[in-house]
């Protein structure tokens, strides 16, 4: 049996454009979102804030010897995170009490007004990408056979660099992309809208779906973490399964696949 390389036009232009544009948008949204979070670095599992009972809280204090300390509280668990979270680089050349460090925020210094401007502009960019991409998105819907083949695909992913370069998305790709596009991103968008008092006046049910406005911030924040986790794994898989071919296909549309030669 002979393996032949074939070029395949895999990603039409709108898919490539919305891929890169939404990647940019999600990056800016995450970093400006951290800027916004810095204005009140605490999350509450309720509608109004219960200031004495945060679920998550970033904070700063001082050690007995007077040196500053940064921490993250998750419930009753305290994790010391000095120089990164709670107390860290302030973008002005020093360090100060600050939930997310300057290197993770847009702008780098503390600036809620501009953080919000970046966030809202790129939220619109993401929505525009979603509107265009929706035409192609349904090809991500996993079929019955995708679900059936999932255990096999999972096993083959243990050695990602040996994965065959197939013409179709494999079941694991389909299911994870589907989860991002149809579950995680909608949760992030809707929980973000639930933070808007004007949107809430239109849809009283929206914050309630998430357990209240403050709880919606938890969903919004958790969605961001899920997206970051996806991004890390996605980059890893892109690199391990043929970096050049993968990136080239998302730039030019053309993907090289291994095909069994039939004679």
């Amino acid at each position, binding site marked *: 049996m002979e393996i032949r390389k074939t070029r395949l036009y895999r990603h039409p232009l709108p898919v490539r454009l919305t891929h890169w544009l939404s990647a940019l948008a999600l*990056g*800016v949204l995450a*970093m400006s979102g951290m800027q*916004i*979070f810095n*204005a*009140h670095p*605490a999350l*509450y599992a309720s*509608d*109004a*804030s219960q*200031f004495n009972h945060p679920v998550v809280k970033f904070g700063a204090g001082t050690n007995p010897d007077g040196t500053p300390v940064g921490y993250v509280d998750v419930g009753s668990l305290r994790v010391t995170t000095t120089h990164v979270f709670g107390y860290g680089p302030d*973008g002005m050349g020093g360090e100060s009490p600050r939930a997310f460090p*300057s*290197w*993770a*925020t*847009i*702008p*780098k*210094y503390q*600036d*809620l*007004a*501009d953080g*919000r*401007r*970046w966030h*809202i*502009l790129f939220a*619109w960019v993401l929505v525009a990408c979603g509107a265009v991409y929706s035409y192609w998105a349904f090809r991500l819907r996993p079929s019955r056979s995708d679900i059936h083949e999932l255990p096999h695909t999972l096993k083959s992913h243990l050695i990602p660099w040996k994965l065959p370069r197939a013409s179709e998305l494999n079941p694991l790709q389909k299911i994870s992309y589907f989860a991002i596009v149809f579950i995680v991103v909608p949760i992030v968008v809707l929980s973000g809208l639930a*933070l*808007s*008092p*004007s*949107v*809430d*006046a*239109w849809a*009283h049910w929206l914050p309630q779906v998430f357990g209240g*406005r*403050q709880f919606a*911030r938890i969903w919004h924040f958790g969605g961001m973490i899920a997206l970051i986790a996806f991004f890390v794994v996605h980059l890893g898989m892109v690199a391990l399964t043929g970096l050049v071919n993968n990136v080239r296909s998302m730039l030019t549309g053309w993907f090289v696949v291994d095909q069994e030669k039939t004679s």
Partner: protein
Amino acid sequence: MKMDRRSFVGLVAIASLTGCSRIATSLNENETVRRLLRAPEGLDLALLGAAQPLAREYTVNDVSGDFRQNGFDPPSSDEYQRWGKNGWRGFTLRVDGMVNRPTSYDMPALRRKFVRRSQITRHDCVEGWSVIGKWNGVLIADLLADCRPKPLAQFVVFHCMDDDGAGNAYYESLNMRQAAHPQALLAYDLNDRPIPVKNGAPLRVKVPTQLGYKSAKYVRRIELVASLGGALGRGGYWEDRDYEWFAGI
């Protein structure tokens, strides 16, 4: 020195993030980019400000134990202290500008002359937190009707008694449509007691469909104008510092 793979990946990640943050920060200073960053506000206002549905109203059981204080320190003037000590005797609210009947009201007049309206609504701070409070007060629409706005009046400007400590007084503004919203209140009570000094005594705005900074505290004068700009800047203390004038998001 040997570096393990994990810390190498970590360093690369931090370096890339630093790069992105620096590029965005320098773009943030660029005038064209700033215009672009301000662009969505008009769209947001057009989409969300056209019809103005009512914000959700809560029950007494939902009221937050403490209504968090934020913003500037309470006004420090002797006059304000004296009014506070005397149960706001001597204090008057002035409504003027483009109205046919410029009027001053003292607190008893506001409480007596106008229908008392109540709302239990959520206050969402731009910083991210929320508190729920019960407000009693005068509908801004009722107050304006009493002063008879001129047809060319477009904005209602609230001049306040608190300042940022550097001499810049707080102020805010709504357009006529927002001021006519059936929940746009000039409140005198919080949780059925006169508003505490920390929350804006004796009079503050409450607009539950927008972020907290629109709900100006320590209101002293309401001025109707045909346009913002000039001495009025972008229509608010925080707006002059690049926060959105339409704070519905």
